[in-house]
Each structure stands twice: as structure tokens, then as C-alpha cells.
């Protein structure tokens, strides 16, 4: 009896100590919420509801993927929502006023996004500025540039864009939009980048401890600039998807999306201190945010502000869980993931202060 108990406890601790434990919890939570919806509301349990989740949140998924890399490296990018809006605005202007071909507009917009991110990355790296304040300024800049182009919304009637917004790709009994395919391809690319390339390993190393990454001879500067360029081009891609979705360019598009993206990344199990987390977890985070909105829409009596309250509560629970687990791990003596990085950070600051 006692043997089985202790072996049970050991097995439990082994599961707890697994690096993917938080991600596992998130998946269970997602299934629970979906199950709850299926029981409570008729018509909730269908493939189309799942597909709609993806259709409505494709742009958020792409943004959150970029944000995951930034947060993994220990930084933050507040400019993504504004870059999205700027992208819709620039593409609408180029398409409607200058009559550029759609494909070249997309290429130009993606390049602009990458350049914008690289610029912020350079400021952060070369001048040792705080990512928070630099991307905050980037956020103001991108929103302001939107209004410089036009204060009003510009409708897009380009054939390719309309086609992209109306095409339905059937999946079994349901359908998805092309945006979903693009977003999922992006996710696959991001998983490959994060876990199977040198770039990805450098991102994790910088997030764990930038100083040690530098001492290990990793290209810290190049990687950091690339991370912000990647995040901004993800935001630009999300902007293209968003303009498929809305068929317009507008400076007020996607306000506060950066917070949704950060929330999705955190709920997906990535630590905000950096160096720990999975890109795939971000998909779960985005889907959880989507399920909350769907649940509230299905209920009909709950008002939209409940979304905010529930997202806040979920954020709190996840942060609490992450914190308690890392504290428990510290006490148990085996420190997975963040804790060695944190302690060494503290030691490093103590040393530099001394």
C-alpha cells in the first residue's frame, strides 16, 4: 500500500517536473471549456464551431506566434496591434489609390513590417534601450502613421482580397478560410524555427540568460534584431489576414490586440521572464481566448465585458500556477526551466551592483 502510494507520488512529481506540464494543463482546460460548452448549449459541439474559432482568430494566432519568440527571448513587443493596423492601412492605400497589384502589395507590406521590427530591434540592442519603451514608441508611431495616410476607413475591393475573404476550403463537414491555412502554415514554420534551428536555440538561450548567451559566443545582437523583425513581420502578415477578414484598412483596427497576444502567450505556458515555453502552447492560448468569446456569444445573456473579466481571471490563475510550480521546484531542489535563469539573473545583478 505504502509502496504504491510513494510510487504514485513519484510518478506525479515526475509529471509535474516535465517541461510541458503547463502546456498540458492548458490543453486539458481547453477541452474542459469546450466540453462545458457542448453540454450547455445546443449546436456547440460541431466541427464548424472549431473551424470558426480558427477563422475568427487566425490573425491573432499569427501575431501571438511572433510575440512568443519575443517573450521567449525575455522581451516584449507592444507595437504589434498598431503594426497590424498600419499594414491594413498601407495595403488598402496601395491597392485602392495607387492600384498596385495585390501580390506586390503583400510583399511590400511584409518587408515594411520586417524593417519596422528590425529598426526597433536595433534600438533595443545597440543602445541598450528597454524593449517596453521602444515598442511603446513604435506603437504610437505605427498608429500615428495610419492616421497620416487617412483618418477614415478605406474599403478594399481588390479581386484577390475579395476572393481570399470569400473562398471556403471544406474540411470534412465544415469549412475554413484560406487565412486559417496560412496561419497554420506559419505555426508549423514557427515550431520548426523555435525547436530545430540555431536561431531558435539562440532565442531560448538569450531568454534564459543574455549574458551567458553572449559568453557562449551566440550571436546575441543579430538574434535579437531578427526576433523583433520576425515579430513585426508576423504582425504585418496578421494585418494581411485581417484585411482579408475585414476587407478594409482602418487606423482603429485591432486596438488592444497586443494585450490579447500577450495573454494568449502567457496562457499558452510561456514564461514572461523568458527562456521557457512552447510555440505550440500559443495555439492553445489563442484557442482558449476564442472559446471564451464563443461561449459568451452562445450564451447570449452574458455581455461582452465578461470576456475581459474571464481573460483577466485566467491570466491570474495561470500566472499563479506558474509561480507556485516554480517555487515548488525550487524547494524540491530540481529546478526546471526558469528558476536557474532567475537565480543567475539575480546573482548577475548582485555582482554588477557590487
Amino acid at each position, binding site marked *: 500500500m505504502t509502496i504504491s502510494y510513494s510510487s504514485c507520488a513519484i510518478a506525479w512529481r515526475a509529471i509535474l517536473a516535465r517541461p510541458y506540464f503547463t502546456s498540458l494543463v492548458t490543453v486539458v482546460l481547453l477541452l474542459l471549456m469546450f466540453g462545458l460548452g457542448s453540454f450547455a448549449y445546443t449546436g456547440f459541439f460541431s466541427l464548424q464551431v472549431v473551424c470558426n474559432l480558427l477563422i475568427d482568430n487566425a490573425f491573432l494566432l499569427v501575431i501571438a506566434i511572433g510575440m512568443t519568440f519575443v517573450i521567449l527571448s525575455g522581451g516584449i513587443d507592444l507595437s504589434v496591434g498598431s503594426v497590424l493596423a498600419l499594414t491594413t492601412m498601407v495595403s488598402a492605400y496601395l491597392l485602392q489609390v495607387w492600384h498596385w497589384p495585390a501580390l506586390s502589395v503583400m510583399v511590400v507590406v511584409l518587408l515594411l513590417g520586417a524593417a519596422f521590427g528590425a529598426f526597433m530591434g536595433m534600438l533595443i540592442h545597440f543602445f541598450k534601450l528597454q524593449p517596453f*519603451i521602444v515598442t511603446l514608441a513604435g506603437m504610437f508611431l505605427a498608429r500615428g502613421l495610419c492616421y497620416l495616410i487617412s483618418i477614415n476607413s478605406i474599403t478594399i475591393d481588390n479581386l484577390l482580397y475579395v476572393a481570399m475573404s470569400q473562398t471556403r476550403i471544406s474540411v470534412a463537414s465544415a469549412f475554413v478560410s484560406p487565412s486559417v491555412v496560412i496561419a497554420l502554415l506559419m505555426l508549423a514554420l514557427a515550431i520548426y524555427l523555435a525547436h530545430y534551428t540555431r536561431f531558435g536555440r539562440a532565442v531560448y538561450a538569450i531568454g534564459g540568460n543574455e549574458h551567458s548567451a553572449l559568453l557562449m559566443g551566440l550571436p546575441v545582437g543579430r538574434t535579437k534584431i531578427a526576433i523583433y523583425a520576425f515579430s513585426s513581420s508576423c504582425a504585418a502578415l496578421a494585418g494581411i489576414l485581417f484585411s482579408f477578414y475585414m476587407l478594409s484598412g482602418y487606423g482603429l483596427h485591432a486596438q488592444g490586440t497586443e494585450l490579447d497576444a500577450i495573454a494568449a502567450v502567457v496562457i499558452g505556458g510561456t514564461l514572461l521572464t523568458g527562456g521557457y515555453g512552447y510555440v505550440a502552447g500559443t495555439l492553445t492560448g489563442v484557442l482558449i481566448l476564442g472559446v471564451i468569446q464563443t461561449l459568451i456569444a452562445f450564451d447570449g445573456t452574458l455581455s461582452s465585458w465578461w470576456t475581459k473579466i474571464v481573460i483577466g481571471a485566467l491570466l491570474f490563475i495561470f500566472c499563479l500556477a506558474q509561480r507556485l510550480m516554480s517555487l515548488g521546484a525550487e524547494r524540491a531542489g530540481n529546478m526546471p526551466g526558469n528558476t536557474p535563469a532567475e537565480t543567475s539573473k539575480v546573482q548577475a545583478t548582485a555582482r554588477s551592483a557590487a
Partner: protein
Amino acid sequence: MSASMNSKLFAGQDERAPARRWQQLLQHPLLRPVAALAVLLLIDLFLIPGFFRIELKDGHLYGSVIDIFNRAAPLMLAALGMTLVIATRGIDISVGAVVAIAGTVAAMLIGGTVVMHNGVPEYASNMPMGWALAAALGAALLCGVWNGLLVAGLGLQPIIATLILMVAGRGLAQLLTDGQIITVYYQPFFFLGGGYLLGLPFSLFIVAAMFVLLAVLMRKTALGLFIQAVGINPVAARLAGIRTAALILFVYVFCSLCAGMAGLMISSNIKSADANNAGLLLELDAILAVTLGGTSLAGGKFSLVGSVVGALIIQALTYTIYSLGVPPEVNMVVKSVVVFLVCLSQSPEFRRLSSSLVKS
């Protein structure tokens, strides 16, 4: 011999003294924010006719400068609170949400129902105004305690700890008002944001009182020193015997209290409470004001005067852009360029680069 040498030495020092004082002045941390404000005001002086004219109408002072001060009042309050938080290496991005909550609570409790008084319809408060204001500030206080407990008690990262309230806070405020904008009809409440005392806007007196209170706390007690110590090195500060957790809790509570007062001012000024838009992006402006004032986001040394000057710079910039007839949307672009420049000027790497460029 030695006396003459001494006198020579002193004379030499005397000759150098003005230069050194000049150097000290050049290196004073407040120089850059004040210079930026001065440049802005100079531009206004030349481009906006009658910018510095102040008139006395019905015992109130009117003029552009007064207007800038008056409109900057909520931002100055928020920036004062934010300064302390940033000095401890923290950040509070829930300021806007706290503004919404405090404004909503006050507006709901005051409201204003029509009461017939001697045959004349009058608006009466639902609740004595003092209680309503206290309740609103109490709500803000609770928000601060929540933030502080998350940061100091649980050890969450400040950005993420306050992000929770930032996301949920507006939702809570909307829950209270059922998504409606609540209009206030009770006259005395408008005094807070739009009243005049001794010819000056009443809001300025609140800011001044807060500033004096903080300055005394920071200069005359050890609190300022402790806050700096925590910001420079939290571990060392704790080992030195400072009660870090209590101190961090205090700064977040104080920041939320300032935000709550700013919320009262804003809702009194617009005579209503808008849970969705009141104080939108105020947290970012407050952080910006603190950074403009020369306080580093890395914590440690802070300047209260700097933050007030920073808030004035932001408001003066907005005012200038509006009165020059530039579309108000450009404001954001200008603001972002200013942030980039100020951050760069604070970066030692950039200074080294520019000085080496100047030399070569």
C-alpha cells in the same frame, strides 16, 4: 609662502568655480526635460499669438498656460504615482483601468436625481459626496493592494501582474455600469475637475498637495532612500534589512490611489463616467512622462519634479499640435519621435557614439 600658495590655490579654484558650476548645471538630470519644455514653450511663443497672455475673468485666470496646467493635472497625478513604482524597477500598466473604476464608482454613487426643493427642481446626490469619493478612492486602494500583493507577495513580474487588472479592470467597471455611460448631474462634483480656487483651477491644488506630500515623504523620511535602494538592487536591499515586500506593496497602493484621484478628476471634468474610454492609454502617457522626466525604467534614482515636467511636456506638445492646426492624429507620430529621441539621449551607448562622432 604657504599662505600665498594657499591663496593662489583658492584663487585658482575661484576662477574655475563658475566653470565647474556650469558643468554641474549641464550634468543636472533635470536639465534635459526642462530644456525640452522651454523649447516647446519658445515655439509656442513665436507661433501662437497671445500664448502667454493670461486674463482675469470673473475672478478666474484664463490663458493657454493655465489651460495646459489644468489639462495636465490627471496626468501629473498618475505620473507621480508611477514614478515611485518605476523607481522600484516596477511598472503599473493598470492605471487606465483604475481611472475607469474610480470614476465609475464615484459617478454611480453620486449620480444625481431630481429633487424638488422649495418648488425648484434641483439635483441631489444619491449618497453624500464625501462618502462617494471615499468609496471611489477605496476601490482604487483595493486595486493597488491587489497589484501590490501580486508583485510583492507572489513575486510576479510587474508588467504581467498589472496586465491582469488592466484587462479585467475595464470589464469590472463596465459590469458595474452595465456597459452604459453614466452621467452625473450633481453640481458640487464638478468642482473637483472644473472648479476654481483663488483664481486657479482647483485640480492644480490637488496635484500640488500630492506633490508636497510626496516630496516631504521622500526627502524628510528614509522612504525615498529605501525606494531607491530597492530599485538599485532588491536583493541587497532586503539583505540590508529593508522590508522590501511592504515597500513594494506601498508603492503600488500609492500609484493606484493617484490613479483613482486622476479618475475622479477626469470624470468630474467630463461630467460622466465612461468605463470604456476614461483614462484610455493614460498608463502609457504616465510612463512616458516619467521617462521624459529622466527617471530610468531600470529603477533606482527618480525625480518627482522631472515627472511633473514630463507630464507638462506631453500636454504642451498636445496643445501646440492642436493650436498649430496640425491634424490631431499627427500627435501620436510626434509623441513617438519624442520618445525615441529622449530614450536615445538617456542611453550611455548613444552618448558615447555621438561624442566619438563629434570628435572625429
